[in-house]
């Protein structure tokens, strides 16, 4: 994989997941108890042997990404020569609008100055653990110009996406951007592999002819005449582009087969920022069932069918059910939450009870005390 460099694109519309992305890009969304979404793309890259990664920073929300990825050291990407590169957006001038394509266009010199042959572009908004070495092999075996990684959707979702109709050999019958997603469709995971030269040409042509959207203007519009293939990932995957998808996908982590498939692959761990949290303490009275519990927690109460992030305190008599509780939350004595998503540093004070529904989880924003 020393032949492949990669770009991580963090510029992505967040229409259906606004509450959670007010001050962070989707890529920084906390997930599965201790991760951020960007960890899945980045870990897959590093585990596949990619050693040269450019991170296209979003226009205004780079803080959480810089704070999470930092030097790249936790991913082995703090290197003297290659490693992690932050590519900041170029300030729009003369009324230009910001766009992912523009961001890529103004950072093409990073791609051109690298000595790898292929570019892998990944939007960091999906959950997966993919061996990109296999994607490269597929790409080479097929003689593809462009390979898009897709997977079969396991739930419907209100957000738009690039839907492909694959043929048996991975060729594509049709590709289109659809306004919403239906279960069973093959949808792009936002991962594109092609030669560096083709990538630069497509981006340059698209942007210089007025394009703004990488998917639409660089890929879809230029697809005719190119050998276009899709690599179908058959392991677990999830696209996080709506609040229901975020909630459902987190709870999906309670499925042991999914947990194994995503996190326990040999030589392919999902890597995240190291915090050296202590092991979680189960105290007198702890009643935990069917839940994912991160380190650094202190549990006196009840937790069922939930995902608990790091350093959460569940006081005696407190109960959490069917919920996603992010880092540094406190559920005080006797408080109960069900079908709730709490962002970081939320406190539910004594005896308070909150309840949403499975298709309408209650969202509680950062730093809120209830």
């Amino acid at each position, binding site marked *: 994989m020393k032949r492949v460099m990669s770009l991580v694109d963090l510029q992505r519309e967040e229409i259906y997941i606004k509450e959670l992305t007010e001050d962070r890009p989707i890529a920084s969304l906390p997930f599965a108890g201790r991760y951020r979404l960007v960890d899945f793309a980045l870990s897959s890259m590093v585990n596949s042997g990619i050693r040269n990664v450019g991170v296209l920073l979003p226009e205004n929300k780079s803080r959480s990404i810089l704070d999470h990825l930092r030097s790249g050291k936790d991913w082995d990407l703090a290197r003297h020569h290659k490693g992690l590169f932050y590519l900041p957006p170029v300030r729009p001038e003369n009324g230009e609008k910001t766009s992912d394509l523009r961001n890529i266009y103004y950072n093409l010199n990073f791609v051109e100055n690298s000595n790898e042959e292929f570019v892998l572009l990944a939007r960091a908004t999906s959950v997966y653990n993919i061996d990109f070495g296999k994607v490269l092999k597929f790409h080479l075996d097929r003689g593809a110009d462009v390979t898009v990684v897709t997977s079969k959707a396991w739930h419907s979702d209100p957000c738009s996406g690039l839907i492909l109709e694959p043929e048996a050999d991975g060729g594509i019958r049709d590709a289109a951007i659809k306004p919403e997603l239906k279960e069973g469709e093959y949808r792009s995971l936002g991962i594109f592999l092609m030669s560096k030269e083709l990538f630069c040409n497509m981006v340059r042509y698209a942007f210089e002819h007025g394009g703004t959207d990488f998917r639409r203007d660089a890929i879809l519009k230029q697809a005719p005449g190119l050998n276009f293939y899709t690599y179908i990932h058959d392991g677990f995957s999830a696209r996080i582009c709506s609040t229901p998808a975020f909630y459902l996908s987190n709870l999906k982590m309670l499925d042991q087969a999914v947990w194994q498939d995503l996190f326990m692959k040999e030589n392919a761990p999902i890597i995240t920022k*190291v915090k050296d949290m*202590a092991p979680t303490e*189960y105290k007198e009275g702890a009643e935990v069932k069917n839940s994912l519990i991160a380190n650094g927690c202190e549990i006196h109460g009840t937790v069922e069918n939930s995902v608990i992030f790091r350093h959460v305190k569940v006081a005696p008599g407190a109960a959490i059910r069917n919920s996603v509780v992010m880092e540094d939350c406190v559920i005080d004595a006797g408080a109960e939450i069900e079908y709730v998503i709490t962002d970081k540093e939320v406190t539910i004070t004594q005896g308070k009870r909150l309840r949403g529904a499975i298709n309408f989880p209650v969202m509680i924003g950062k730093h809120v005390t209830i």
Partner: protein
Amino acid sequence: MKTKCLAMILAGGQGSRLGILTAKVAKPAVPFGGKYRIIDFPLSNCAHSGIERVGVLTQYRPFELNNYLGNGNAWDLDSRGGGVFILPPYAREKGADWYRGTADAIYQNLNFIEMSDPDYVLILSGDHIYAMDYSKMLDAHISKGAEATIGVIRVPMEEASRFGILDAEADGRITRFTEKPAQPTSDLASMGIYIFTKDFLHDYLVEDAKREDSSHDFGKDVIPKMLADGAKLFSYAFDGYWKDVGTIESLWQANMDFLEDETPIDVGGAWRIHSANPPLPPHYIGPEAKVSHALLNEGTVVLGEVEHSVISSGVRIGAGARVTDSVIMPFAVIEDGAVIDHAILGPRTRVMTGAKVKGTPDAIAVTGENETVKAAG
């Protein structure tokens, strides 16, 4: 390169009272507290104390230790001029010598010490669990104009004869030091932690190496000789949690100490204990599981029952299995219905369905790395 204070950790040889737990790794690499290895404690102490260059003296299984320690980057010790260096006995002009004692181990690495060019040398053991700010001990060493400073802790008088016991004046000046005295004259025990002014140490080690009647041990030979010469030796009192985990029982007990309501060391607090962990997901507790009074680490799956135990990373506890008063080391597998009580399971131990590993508080049952325990009959 100039170093203010260089740390040297005595990681020991093969012979260990930890038995089969040290059959495949050196003692400092033995897992502890659900997440750590013993050596994480002195290394994290060094990092927090601003001591960034550490030699680890071992003559046993240097690969495995090397693989775990790397260059110290997990503890942020990999700075310019810093780093963690594994120091096995090495081949010189006259051949390779085994380390003959604690003092000889340091003596054989005088070359490394000179290269590091420290003003002070801090000597530590690789088998103690504690959180200590060495920089305060160093400040005391400097401000008292000491040539040697010995970390001391008060021990119950009835246990004093197991330790190096010293008498000190009110200002800390040491007047007497006796290794494992039959009749202890005080309850001040040496923690096996020494700070020496470098040149002073150098001269004593060179002299000790020449003595044929010496066992080349700090406690038995070098410290008494320094005292006899009237050198300026001071004690430095430490009063936090400090536990020697050199035996199976003490290792088990120290793990159990971490199950108390107030853990004896705030390992996740400001003086956080760092560790070189593989990346693993949060642990999963199954629908029928029951866990209380326990510490659980990442990557573990519990389908059965855990009571008053320390469970490391990547462990699997099957449905109907029951673990009580035990320490389960990384990636052990306890199959459905197995029973573990008053035991330490070594890394990757597999206890098969229906099997039992049962000890008593006085005789903890132990399994070795990769051991498989089958059901009786």
